[in-house]
């Protein structure tokens, strides 16, 4: 489902120095597989996810999603692939504050292959337990409920690959556990591959497959 080869990204510091943040030699995820990636703050794991999602353009290497080489696509192509194949759950949820819960999910779907399917969006929100909050605005919800909206939005298009960046980072322990269980469960239902990055040991401990981002990043750098 996901194959990353020799992926690299560097940034220029304010002092003009070029610093390589990401160099991942080989990384792969099979359909339905769920992997947790450990990474400390500033290790480059968010950049890694953004490169996979095509939000950032890589300096080099390849990211193949469901057989399509993301890095070979132009920007509109990457946008299309992201809308069709990817679900992205952000640490800060990134809900559209001026839109209702239902509209957030509908908008998330509207750029993908299903289009703005309100009935399906409603069903997804019911699935995450927010069927009674459809017309509420994000600010009217608790943090845990907001995260559930973000989950519903990311999964509404039945993505092949779900990326989750510190999805429990803003939640208390109880809500964090609930959110994680929900993400994993819905991904399983849709047979979506899940790549989650976190530095929370409890989150990481819930996964059978765990990797250390620093290790795969260092391995890539060593190989280069």
């Amino acid at each position, binding site marked *: 489902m996901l194959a990353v080869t020799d992926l690299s990204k560097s940034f220029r510091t304010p002092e003009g120095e070029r610093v390589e943040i990401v160099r991942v030699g080989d990384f792969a995820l099979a359909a339905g597989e769920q992997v947790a990636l450990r990474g400390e*703050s500033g290790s480059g794991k968010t950049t890694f996810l953004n490169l996979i999602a095509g939000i950032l353009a890589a300096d080099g290497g390849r990211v193949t999603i469901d057989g399509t080489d993301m890095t070979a696509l132009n920007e*509109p192509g990457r*946008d299309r692939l992201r809308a069709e194949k990817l679900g992205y759950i*952000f640490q800060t949820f990134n809900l*559209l504050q001026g839109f209702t819960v239902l509209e957030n999910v509908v908008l998330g779907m509207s750029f993908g292959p299903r289009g703005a399917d309100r009935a399906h969006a409603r069903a997804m929100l019911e699935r995450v337990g927010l069927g009674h909050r459809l017309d509420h605005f994000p600010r009217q919800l608790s943090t845990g409920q907001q995260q559930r909206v973000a989950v519903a939005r990311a999964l509404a298009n039945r993505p092949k690959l779900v990326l989750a960046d510190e999805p429990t980072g803003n939640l208390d322990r109880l809500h964090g556990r609930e959110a994680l269980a929900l993400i994993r469960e819905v991904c399983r239902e849709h047979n979506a591959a899940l790549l989650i990055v976190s530095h929370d040991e409890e989150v990481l401990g819930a996964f059978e497959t765990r990797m250390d981002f620093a290790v795969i990043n260092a391995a890539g750098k060593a190989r280069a």
Partner: protein
Amino acid sequence: MTLLLLIRRSLRQHALSTVITAGSIALACGLLMCVWMVKTQSQAAFTQTTTGFDAVLGARGSKLQLVLNAIFHLEASPGNVAAADFEAIRRHPMVKTAIPIAVGDNLRGFRLVGTVPELFTTVELAPGKKFTVQAGGKIFDAEAKEAVAGSFAAQRLGLKVGATFKPFHGLAFDAKAEHADVFTVTAILEPTNTPADRVVWIPLRGLQTMSGHDAKTATDVSAVLLQFRTPMAGLQLDMLYNKQGNRLTLAFPVGAIVAELFGKIAWFDQVLTLVAYLVALVAAGSVLASIYNSMSARRRDLAILRALGAKRRTIFGAVLAEAACIGALGAAAGWIFYLGLYAGVAGLIRAQTGVVLEIGAWHPVLWACPVGMIALCALGGIVPALKAYHTPVAETLAPVS
């Protein structure tokens, strides 16, 4: 649907700036349409207001003053026409009708015009349309102290059939200048939508022989309204009175002379039009500023949409469409503003001159102006749309870790 949702929510989120911006567009749009319509409609209405006459004969002087005085009942008379001159023109073989009028008195600010009953019985204001009196009225007797009131004047002065009044000397109302003569209203005219509605008509002899008037000029008239048997008559009489003679002036054709008035005040139209264009530009600029300023607050939303798969051009189009929507809202409100303003101006012109501007009149400017404003607003949306287009997704959503 997505685009509509994005626009609707964005407009709602920035409701105050949307309303203010749309309001300024409405002002510009309404003002532009009103200036244009008042200009074209008043020009058309004034030049067509001949009340059925081809020409006016009066004392030597300005043709425009003669027409304004005799047809529109504005301005002072440039002088008198002697009875012999009136008789000469009345008997001229090319003249079909010659109606004398005399002015110089008023009834509480409304002009009294002395004339002959034939004005009401034989002259057609427009083809097939004569003066008609309201039920229970009759045209005055030429030798009696009687009066026929125009509909607007009667309404404003509260005149009814059987009412009596004493005229005041001069064209401007002066309470101390009351004449001793008493006139009785015998009829109220049906509205004609011409300046005749603002006049109280009395017999020519009644005005000429009014107490206090100079007896030496008791047979003079202020002007003669003329209908010709052929259009050639105007050219021949123009030669006779204007080019060969030096005592009288023939104002012919009436419509062309009124058009001269609009030529003289064209600068005023241009100033108003310029002001309206400037307001339109400022409105478009305010659309630009309003959306551009809101861009900073919306950067995160735009980045989220991009992260969800929205293409750059979708974002660009949404911002552009939002600007056009503000323009459309403004244009719609501008139409309402225009209708109110135009009705007000038309009412004012009617009250001042008796000339009626058609409220439901159509002109291409009524669609071109709103469409132009929408296009101008969309143009104003290009800069913020470009800013939205270039929103960096990763940087905006979260700092690189």
